[in-house]
């Protein structure tokens, strides 16, 4: 990947859209510090993001949990790692926000629905109050109704918690509806970046136009937006 520079701010959402192979996974890996950068760097308030422990919500909710363990254990993992005492009222509040009952946490991953598992995944991402949360295609494994519901819950929680969010997705409709800014990634480069509304109204590049018009044609994006 080359020439990628992105800025994230607290309580704002950046959506990175691009087709398969554009470098979305590499971008996530680099942001999380899982993939080393050969040149350039990723920083958060001037330091490596490893110190703030950004959280990740994965595309496949079930495989993100150890099948042998109760969900509660997996959810608490970020707290255990930081040697934090997890505040029960915070857990309760997040569970309420995600519309899951805390009893769900006493099951194993195979005993909950995909939609529930994804919400538990979001719960784990938020439990230790990270300043930055990455969403890697958070909705693509879910059915249409659950997609809408989950997207709304994420947005509400962000308003409450104030974390910066980076949503990596190929779904321009989702990006346009929930993100403040949109970056278009193509073949490892940032094709264009700007406010979401401006992008939907008038993309700056030819590729951006193609992407937007394809989304219009599919009905994934509403012209009125």
């Amino acid at each position, binding site marked *: 990947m080359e020439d990628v520079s992105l800025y994230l701010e607290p309580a704002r959402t950046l959506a990175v859209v691009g087709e398969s192979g554009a470098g979305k996974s590499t971008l996530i890996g680099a942001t*999380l510090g*899982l993939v080393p950068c050969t040149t350039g760097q990723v920083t958060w308030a001037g330091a490596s993001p490893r110190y703030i422990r950004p959280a*990740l919500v994965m595309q496949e909710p079930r495989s*993100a*949990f*150890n099948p042998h363990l109760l969900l509660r*254990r997996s959810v608490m993992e970020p707290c255990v790692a*930081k040697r934090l005492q997890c505040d029960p009222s915070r857990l309760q509040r997040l569970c309420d926000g995600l519309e899951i009952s805390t009893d769900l946490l006493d099951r194993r991953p195979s005993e909950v629905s995909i939609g529930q598992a994804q919400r538990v995944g979001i719960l784990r991402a938020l439990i230790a109050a990270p300043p930055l949360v990455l969403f890697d295609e958070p909705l693509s494994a879910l059915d249409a109704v659950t997609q809408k519901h989950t997207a709304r819950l994420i947005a509400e929680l962000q308003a409450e918690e104030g974390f910066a969010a980076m949503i990596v997705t190929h779904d321009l409709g989702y990006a346009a509806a929930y993100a403040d800014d949109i970056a278009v990634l193509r073949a490892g480069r940032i094709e264009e970046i700007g406010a979401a509304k401006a992008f939907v109204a008038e993309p700056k590049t030819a590729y951006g136009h193609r992407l937007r018009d394809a989304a219009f044609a599919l009905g994934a994006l509403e012209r009125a937006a």
Partner: protein
Amino acid sequence: MRSVVVLSAVLLALALIGPLLAPHAPTAIDIPNRLSAPDADHWLGTDALGRDIMSRLLHGAKWTIGIAFLISLVGLLVGTLIGLVAALGGRVMDWVCMRTTDTFLAFPDLVAAVVIAGVLGAGTGSLIFALTITGWMRYARVARGIGLSLQNRGYVVQARLAGLSALAIARWHYIPALLPSLTVVWTGMFARAILGISALGFLGFGVQPPMPEWGSMLLDARIHMRSTPLQMIWPGLAVVCSVLAINLAGDALRDALAQNDDQIP
């Protein structure tokens, strides 16, 4: 899994309780009654020094099965540790651990055990050392293989992101996933240890007389093959029965695991 647990419990119980059931002291010498045929007092007869063979067999379980259990467990710990270090410790550690494993695999393990036990001098200590140091490599290979396949699982990535220590990741995410396969390997290594202990005992490098170990009992019995051939049957039969039982339990476990393969991550 249950069959293995039950079987190892039975074998361990045999090793622990067996000596209590013995009608005579295993080392009680009774020269006038030497090489006697089975009778009411000595159910399996006596050996060249008039010692009761039945009692020696029961006490021998303590040595053969007990030491084999110990050896296979230590091998399990050492091998798993090395395999996990190879899988989790980066490329350099992986290379070092795997070349060490290859080095130990460069000899047929019984030959290596004979050399080590023989060179260190006959005795139970060198026996245990020799069979342990030649018996951890399969665990290491299996642990590393599964470990590498776990590395990119979602939940392992999540644990790393959360900043969980390598030790905690191993404890919570690797060990539970490794356990079924390692148990299958363990049954094989337990059986191998029984065979190894009695082989070394038979060569005279193992447990020393007058301690009744099945292999060294066979060594004693061999000299009197012509006069009392039955004496040679019992210790061998004891080895075959224990090894067969362990192997069958291991097979059953492997088949059970293969059937619900999708449950193994």
